[in-house]
């Protein structure tokens, strides 16, 4: 579905390269998990995996005879305040979908992890980091939830563009038309991704704000790729801590 590249779309030697790249990212994602998952957020990770699996099954029609659903990588990354959380969560869901449901190929699993897990998480998280702060002297000020939605949309769009590039490298689609179609379809699908991501984050903020990492941890610095524990990165004597009601900036 959506961006799940099936078996046979990419030559096996290229699949091997994508597997190697995906394994490198999964190594760091596991390191992040090792240092950051605890009794409190492990159940959240489980629930998000189940929810993402379910919502991936619900294709919503989009114009020009296509359909799509959300991926959720940006959502998980923003909830946990780390793109590595999105990578590990989406990688686990993709594995279940490929092995048990034939959704996304087994040989193309690495490519799917890169597109949806890595691109979706990193683009979603860091676009949100960029957009949530006022830019251009306050001219560009999306605020907390708009920035979440726009970041989720960009994550899906760029993940689709990455898939189009992979398809072109595989000789499956020509690059220009592939980017046009994949980008065009997923620009529409991304609207659903944005809406549902905002709804989930907004609901958590209202119902269980303690589960949103932005309320309980220091704001992660922009472009901080650390997989260390939050405690290890916590500045001494509370320096740099942002009160929950102020984080992230409106």
């Amino acid at each position: 579905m959506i961006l799940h590249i099936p078996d046979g779309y990419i030559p096996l030697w290229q699949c091997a390269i994508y597997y190697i790249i995906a394994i490198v990212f999964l190594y760091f994602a596991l390191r992040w998990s090792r240092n950051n998952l605890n009794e409190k957020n492990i159940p959240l990770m489980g629930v998000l995996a189940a929810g993402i699996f379910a919502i991936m099954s619900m294709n919503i029609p989009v114009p020009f005879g296509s359909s799509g659903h959300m991926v959720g990588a940006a959502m998980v990354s923003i909830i946990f305040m780390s793109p590595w959380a999105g990578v590990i969560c989406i990688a686990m869901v993709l594995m279940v979908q490929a092995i048990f449901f034939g959704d996304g190929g087994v040989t193309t699993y690495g490519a799917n992890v890169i597109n949806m897990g890595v691109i979706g998480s990193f683009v979603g998280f860091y676009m949100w980091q960029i957009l949530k702060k006022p830019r251009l002297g306050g001219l560009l000020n999306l605020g907390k939830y708009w920035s979440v939605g726009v970041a989720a949309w960009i994550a899906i769009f760029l993940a689709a563009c990455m898939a189009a590039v992979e398809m072109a490298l595989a000789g499956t689609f020509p690059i220009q038309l592939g980017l046009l179609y994949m980008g065009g379809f997923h620009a529409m699908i991304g609207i659903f991704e944005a809406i549902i991501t905002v709804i989930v984050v907004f609901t958590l903020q209202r119902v269980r704000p303690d589960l949103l990492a932005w309320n309980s941890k220091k704001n992660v610095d922009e472009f901080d790729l650390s997989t260390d524990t939050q405690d290890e990165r916590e500045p001494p004597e509370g320096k740099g801590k942002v009160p929950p009601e102020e984080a992230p900036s409106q």
Partner: protein
Amino acid sequence: MKTETRNLIIGGVAVALIIAILSPYIASTNPDGLGATAQHLNPSKWNSTSNDFTNPGYWNAPFAGYMVSQLGDTKLAGIVALVIGCFIAMGVALGVSEIIKRRKRSDVN
């Protein structure tokens, strides 16, 4: 297990199951973004009879197409497959996370 953790799991699973049960009824049967692109740009990669990707047969998934084949081509077959999938996804996520946490604890000790 703390009450708030139990409530989180119950609430999350309930939402996932509601989506799983409704999905076969309300999900679009149009091809997804990649499928629609394949239809336009490389029709050989698309099986118009089954309205799905052509499968080279590298791997035969037990619930292919999100259906429990033993239940026939029915909505129930789709619902059961999705409910199973929700629990597998949650089980894998919880299991992997728990293993990682235990390994860290044993390393510390």
